[in-house]
C-alpha cells in the first residue's frame, strides 16, 4: 500500500486503528495481527479475522509506533489486542521525548 501521512487505517483482526504520521516514499505492507490494515473510509469488515499469534501483542491508544529505521510512524487512535507491523517487522513504541508544555 502507498501510505499517505494523515491516512486512517483500521485493523481487520481487532479494534486497533491508527493514523499515519510518517510514511516512507515506497509502498509498504502495513499489518495488524499479521493481516493487512484497511483504509478507514472503506470500513472495517463486520467479522473480524483471527490474528496471527506472532502478532498478538496489545497496541496502546495514544502511543506512536515506528520501525527500526524510523521511516514509518503510526499513531494509535484506538487501542486493540494485535500488534502493528510493517513488511513483517513488528513496530516498537516510539520513546517520547516530549517538548516542554508550551501553549
Amino acid at each position, binding site marked *: 500500500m502507498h501510505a499517505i501521512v*494523515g491516512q*486512517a487505517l483500521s485493523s481487520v483482526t481487532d479494534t486497533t486503528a491508527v*493514523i499515519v*504520521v510518517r510514511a516512507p516514499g515506497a509502498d509498504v505492507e502495513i499489518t495488524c495481527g499479521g493481516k493487512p490494515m484497511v483504509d478507514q473510509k472503506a470500513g472495517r469488515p463486520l467479522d473480524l479475522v483471527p490474528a496471527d499469534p506472532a502478532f498478538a501483542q496489545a497496541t496502546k*491508544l*495514544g*502511543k*506512536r509506533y515506528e520501525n527500526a529505521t524510523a521511516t514509518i510512524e503510526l*499513531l494509535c*487512535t*484506538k*487501542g486493540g489486542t494485535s500488534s502493528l507491523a510493517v513488511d513483517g517487522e513488528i513496530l516498537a513504541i516510539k520513546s*517520547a521525548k*516530549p*517538548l*516542554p*508544555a*508550551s*501553549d
Partner: protein
Amino acid sequence: MNLSLLLDMVRDGLGQRILLGSRHDGMTGEDLHRRSVGGARAVRDARATALIYVGVNGPAFPLSMFAAARAGVPLAPLNYRLGDDQLAQLVRHHPGALAVTDPGQFERVRRLGVEAITIGQWLDRTAELAGEAIDPPEPSSEAAIIIYTSGTTSAPKGVVIKHSNLVSYVIGSVEFGGADAAEAALVSVPPYHIAAVANAITNLYAGRRTVVLDQFTAEQWLDAARAERITNAMVVPTMLARIMSADGDLRVPSLRTVAYGGAAMPLPVIEHALRAWPDVDFVNAYGLTETSSTIAILGPADHRAAIAADDPDVRARLASVGQVVPSVELQIRGERGEVITDGGPGRIFVRGDQVSGEYTGAGSVLDAHGFFDTRDLGRVDRDGYLFIQGRADDTIIRGGENIAPAEIEDVLLGHPDVVDAVVVGIPDDEWGQVLKAAVVLRADSAATGELLREHVRARLRSSKTPDLILVWDELPRTETGKLVRREAVKRIAAESEPAGV
C-alpha cells in the same frame, strides 16, 4: 484529519478525568465529548455554515471548537471588545453562521443579523442533543478555526488554521495522556487568540485539566493558582510583570511550569521571575497565529543555564526564543531573498505542517518552496538559538539608515526606572523619519525624557538616539499585551506637534 479524532481519543483513554474547570465540579473528557456531539447536532439542525464565538474563555469555548469540528464547519472566535462596525466587518465573512455569545453580547450580535445563542443556552442545548456519536460529514471544511489577527499595524486578517495544521502540531509535540492526574493548567488568554486554541487542545490531549481565569488581575491569578493547585500556567509577559509586582506572598507551591509568549518578554521581568520562583520551569514559546502555535522554544534548562552563566553568549540566550521545534524548518533571509547562515540578521521564514500560510479570501501566501514569511526579523546564533529583532514593518528608516526600534527599546528598558518603552518613526521632511519615543516610568522615578536620551546616547550611536522621549502612564497594548504601534505613533505624533498658533 479532523480535530474530532483527538477528542475521540480523549474520551477513550481519558474520559473519566476532569479536564475543564474546577477539580470539584469540572467537565470530564466523557462529558465534553458527549456535549460536542450535541453541539454538532445543534449546528447541523441550524444548518449553520460556521460557528462564531463572541465571549470570554471558558469550557464553552473548547466545547464550541469540537462541536464545530464534528459538524464539519469552521469556528471563528471574535474579539468581544470590538466596536459594532469592526465586529460587523468580521461577521460578514461568515454568512449563515450560528453565534455562541456571552449574555451581554447576545443582543448586539443579533442586531448584526446573526442567529445567536447565549453560552448558558448553548451548554443546555449541547447536553440535550448529546446522544449517539456522529462523525464529521464528508467532505468537511478543511478550516478548523479562523483567527483574526489583532492587526496591530493594519486591518485584521483572517488566518485559516486547518485541521491538519492543528492535528499534526498536537501529535508531534504532545504525548497523549502524558499529564499526571494532579496536573492543572491556568489560562488567562481570550479565545480569539491562537494561544487559547492551541492551549485548549494540547491540554485536553495531554489529559491536563484546564482552568480559565477570564479577567486577569495579579491577585486573582495568585488566588486561583493556589485554590486550584495549578501546576502549569500560561501567561503573556504583561501578566508575569504584574504578578511579579503584586503585593504580598508570591509563592504558589503547586506551580511546576510557566510558559510565556505572545509578545517580547522584558529581560528584567523574566530575571525577577526566575529568582522569585526558583523551582519553577520556565518555557518561552515563540509562534505566530499563522504557525498555529509554537515554532521555537527556550526550555527550562536553557533558562537556568542562562541566568547562571558567566559566558555572555549563554547569558544572552535569556533574551532569545530558543531553538526551533523539530517539525519546523526555519530560514533567515536577506533582502535579496538569500539564505543567511552565518548568524547575521534577516527576515524569518518557516516551513512545516503546522504552518497555515493561508488567509481568508487570499489563499496561500507560502512562497514557491512552501516557506511562510513571518515578517519578523531575527538571527540564529551558532548553537541554533533564535533571537527576534522586531517586526520588519516596524523598521524605521532615518536618513537612509535602517533602525530597528527593538534595539533602542531594549536599551531604554535596561534603565532601572523604565518599565515600558516604545520607539517609533515619525515622518519628517528632512530625514524621512525621525525617532521619537514614549516610556512608562517606575512610580518613584525622578527620571526625565532628557535623562533617558543621554542614557541611550551613551550606549548607541547618536543617530539612534530619539529626538524626544515622552513620559506616559501606560503604552497602548492589546488585551494580551501586544504593543499597538500604530496607536503609539499617532499619539506621539500628536503630542510632539509644535504648538499651533
